[in-house]
């Protein structure tokens, strides 16, 4: 490949198979003698299992439960608290208790309906509020506290002009990847093979080794083409893989587990609902003297990835700002509800929504324009992070803000909207912005201590190069992006580099496909491997090149103290949204969307644009459209239209702009892009709604119901 600029887009590796519908996703796979699995799920939120009564099972049907697990009955991830099959205690509605397998899907469902279980019901924690009340006694998955000393904060507060206390709440978000979760387990004499829709092959493999109590070479994991992930296929597939792996081993036949949409909505992980309590001290001019935040994440019934999600929430709790005397404390709490997990942004979108909201409100209280007020606090190169790390690379965000304000003619637009709102009784227009960053890669020393990524390149005698890594393409374009990096480095045509769907039998552990690390971390390793291969290139001879992660030491991360450099690099973003609110219905019509981003260097401009458009659509919808609720421990929305992710008619063209700011640690200067664009959508949409209505909101999504409630209160004089 000898493109002058690597950013120029190429045809995606997987285009033809996808556009023709002939690329087989896991649900399209059929193998001989394949059985289906269906899960019997706990009907109650918390209880002790007394008995399970099965109907007579026809020939060829079997129950697979905890008794079939050769190894330990938990899904190996961080804590050991998530049973594969809950046989003694159930801790949330929908928790898998056992599986029925057999040849006919509808017969399995009929059998499920005839199962009778007797469960002794125990008190359940069904809301985050209840979990917060009980946290001193029970149910803390993780907690951290860091920042300025409490006595210093107290002293500052005593002399402050005013103290502003605000609470802020964020809701669930559901991934709605278009392909529901699916996993196939295949038994052979030598191994258990599991293939399916997933982001993290070695998470799945390690969970299988633990559950099957087997050797490394007795399990094998292959990623199927994956119809969207967004974090939803980060931790959850391990559970399903254990189900089909155990079942396949028990019945010695292939077992397929495929969810339909309602099941996927009800039992798979979601974005953590969160609550923030901020206390901010101001001087007479409205300047911030100190800030204290407590945040709580609803982890659901087991820890899953919540402890790590909490870290990212906390690390972003001051946003992109240098706040004097900042103190933070956070908890990931247990509730008897569906476990929450990874979702694009991984705890950061909640925190950015909260801090952007707070600073917006403070600016209003001190009669300053929110954008101007926030800009006073924007971090600069060389500034410390809230954990005592350092923003060591150039920080362009203030220039990006300045550019965007000029592009949209912010002051003029504000005046126009103000005039429009004066004479239009029904519709009100508003404009709002958000400023944000994303720490690229794993938090802290994760890459060095836990992941230890390895990549491999293999060259055939015909000079075709294969990329051998465990990272998934779930739509984000990794097949194409990483192939481009390798081709470019080797000076080969793009077509001569291929990246087959990974198979753990063939590929080393290059880490999970998460944390916006694939291009930056894995891409850099591939760049190095390619350069090594090039050095030893001998035409007509097969060759391999392997590279391992090398940690670049910065200010060392200390997880206990929550101090040091949490990330090797940061990507940055500025969003600006113009919208119109219908004050009769509370409906919001987004009219213009702008996004400016510093992601180092785009490896493929079109792929990056795709990440920006898709991420912003999700982020904006998180702020005002997508509402998911749990009632008595049960997710209420069971269909796509109940939940309401945006259609093509709900989004508008997005004006996006990239700023080159190459990062030495990334391939060709690239930093992470996957999660960043989602982060700014919600706070920008909230700020724009607030601007339109001149009403402050303290939660997302800002639904029409909420808008009407507040408008009604204001009309009645009580708001």
């Amino acid at each position, binding site marked *: 490949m000898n493109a002058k600029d690597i950013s120029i887009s190429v045809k995606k590796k997987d285009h033809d198979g996808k*556009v023709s519908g002939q690329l087989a996703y896991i649900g399209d796979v059929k193998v001989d003698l394949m059985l289906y699995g269906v899960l019997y799920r706990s009907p109650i939120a918390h209880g002790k299992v007394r008995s399970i009564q099965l109907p007579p099972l026809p020939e060829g049907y079997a129950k697979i439960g905890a008794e079939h697990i050769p190894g330990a009955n938990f899904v190996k991830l961080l804590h050991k608290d998530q049973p594969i099959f809950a046989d003694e205690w159930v801790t949330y509605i929908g928790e898998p208790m056992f599986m029925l397998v057999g040849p006919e899907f509808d017969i399995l469902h009929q059998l499920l309906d005839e199962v009778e279980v007797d469960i002794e019901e125990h008190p359940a924690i069904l809301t985050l509020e209840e979990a917060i009340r009980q946290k001193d006694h029970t149910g803390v998955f993780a907690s951290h506290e860091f920042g300025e000393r409490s006595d210093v904060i107290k002293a500052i507060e005593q002399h402050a002009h005013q103290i502003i206390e605000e609470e802020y709440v964020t809701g669930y978000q559901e991934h709605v990847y278009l392909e529901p979760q699916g996993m196939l387990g295949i038994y052979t004499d030598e191994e258990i093979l599991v293939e399916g829709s997933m982001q993290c092959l070695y998470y799945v493999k390690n969970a299988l080794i633990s559950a099957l109590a087997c050797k490394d070479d007795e399990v094998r994991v292959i990623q199927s083409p994956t119809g969207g992930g967004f974090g939803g296929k980060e931790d959850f597939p391990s559970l399903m893989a254990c189900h089909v792996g155990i079942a396949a081993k028990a019945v010695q036949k292939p077992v397929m587990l495929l969810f339909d949409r309602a099941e996927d909505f009800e039992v798979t992980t979601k974005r953590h609902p969160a609550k923030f309590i901020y206390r901010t001290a101001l001087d007479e001019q409205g300047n911030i003297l100190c800030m204290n935040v407590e945040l709580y994440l609803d982890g659901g019934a087991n820890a899953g990835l919540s402890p790590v999600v909490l870290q990212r929430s906390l690390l972003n709790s001051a946003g992109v700002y240098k706040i004097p005397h900042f103190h933070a404390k956070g908890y990931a709490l247990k509730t008897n509800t569906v476990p929450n997990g990874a979702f694009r942004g991984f705890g950061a979108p909640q925190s950015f929504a909260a801090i952007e909201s707070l600073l917006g409100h403070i600016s209003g209280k001190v009669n300053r324009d929110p954008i101007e007020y926030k800009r006073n606090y924007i971090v600069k190169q060389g500034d410390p992070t809230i954990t005592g790390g350092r923003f060591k690379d150039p920080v362009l965000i203030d220039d990006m803000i300045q550019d965007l304000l000029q592009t949209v003619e912010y002051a003029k637009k504000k005046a126009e909207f103000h005039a429009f709102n004066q004479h239009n009784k029904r519709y009100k227009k508003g404009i709002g912005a958000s400023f944000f960053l994303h720490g690229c890669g794993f938090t802290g020393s994760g890459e060095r201590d836990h992941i230890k990524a390895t990549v491999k390149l293999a060259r055939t005698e015909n000079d075709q190069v294969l990329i051998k890594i465990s990272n998934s393409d779930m739509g984000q374009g990794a097949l194409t992006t990483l192939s481009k990096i390798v081709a470019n480095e080797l000076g080969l045509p793009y077509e001569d580099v291929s990246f087959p769907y990974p198979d753990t039998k063939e590929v080393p552990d290059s880490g999970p496909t998460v944390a916006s690390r694939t291009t930056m971390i894995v891409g850099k390793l591939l760049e190095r491997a390619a350069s090594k291969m090039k050095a030893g290139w001998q035409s007509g001879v097969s060759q391999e090149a392997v590279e391992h992660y090398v940690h670049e030491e910065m200010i060392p991360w200390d997880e206990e103290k929550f101090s040091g450099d949490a990330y090797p690099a940061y990507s940055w973003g500025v969003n600006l949204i113009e919208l119109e609110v219908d004050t009769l219905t509370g409906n919001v019509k987004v009219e213009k969307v702008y996004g400016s981003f510093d992601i180092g260097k785009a490896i493929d401009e079109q792929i990056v644009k795709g990440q920006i458009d898709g991420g912003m659509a999700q982020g904006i919808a998180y702020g005002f459209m997508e509402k998911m609720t749990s009632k008595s421990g049960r997710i209420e929305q069971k269909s796509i239209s109940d939940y309401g992710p945006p259609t093509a008619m709900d989004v508008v063209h997005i004006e996006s702009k990239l700023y080159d700011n190459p990062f030495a640690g990334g391939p060709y200067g690239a930093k992470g892009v996957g999660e960043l664009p989602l982060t700014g959508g919600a706070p920008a949409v909230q700020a724009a709604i607030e601007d339109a209505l001149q009403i402050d909101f303290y939660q997302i999504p800002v639904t029409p119901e909420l808008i009407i409630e507040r408008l009604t209160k204001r009309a009645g004089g009580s708001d």
Partner: protein
Amino acid sequence: MIKFILNGKEVETVAPATVRLIDLLRDDFQLIGPKEGCGDGECGTCSVLVNQLVQNSCLIPIGAIEGAEIITIDGYCNTEQFQLLSECYSEAGAVQCGYCIPGMIMASEALLSQNPHPTEEEIREGISGNLCRCTGYNMIVDAIDLAAKKGDGLW
């Protein structure tokens, strides 16, 4: 016995009349193009053409398609129109995870065959029953717009 035309060929089935068309296509005719994303007619991944009109194959009982002409992506992908749409989807960068794309292509064909030069608003309406979670739709809208421009006379 239900007879209909599937991707240009006369076919028949003895499956019960209330079986969903999507199941018949995928299980009995081994066509993997129409995908199941929701089974409620709310995502469009199973879109097919029924007598040239885009419809959700998950909502159609096969008893209702006697004599109808059904075209799925599996057959449509051999047409000139498909080739152009595929090129334009690639050029616009419209394909990410790909799960919505077969349905999106069928909706694109239905739109362009009725309205060869749609406005942006008409394109958005034309694919409004086809959910995509990856792209935020804009690159798909661009792809269809591109196809309309390049495909002058094809539709």
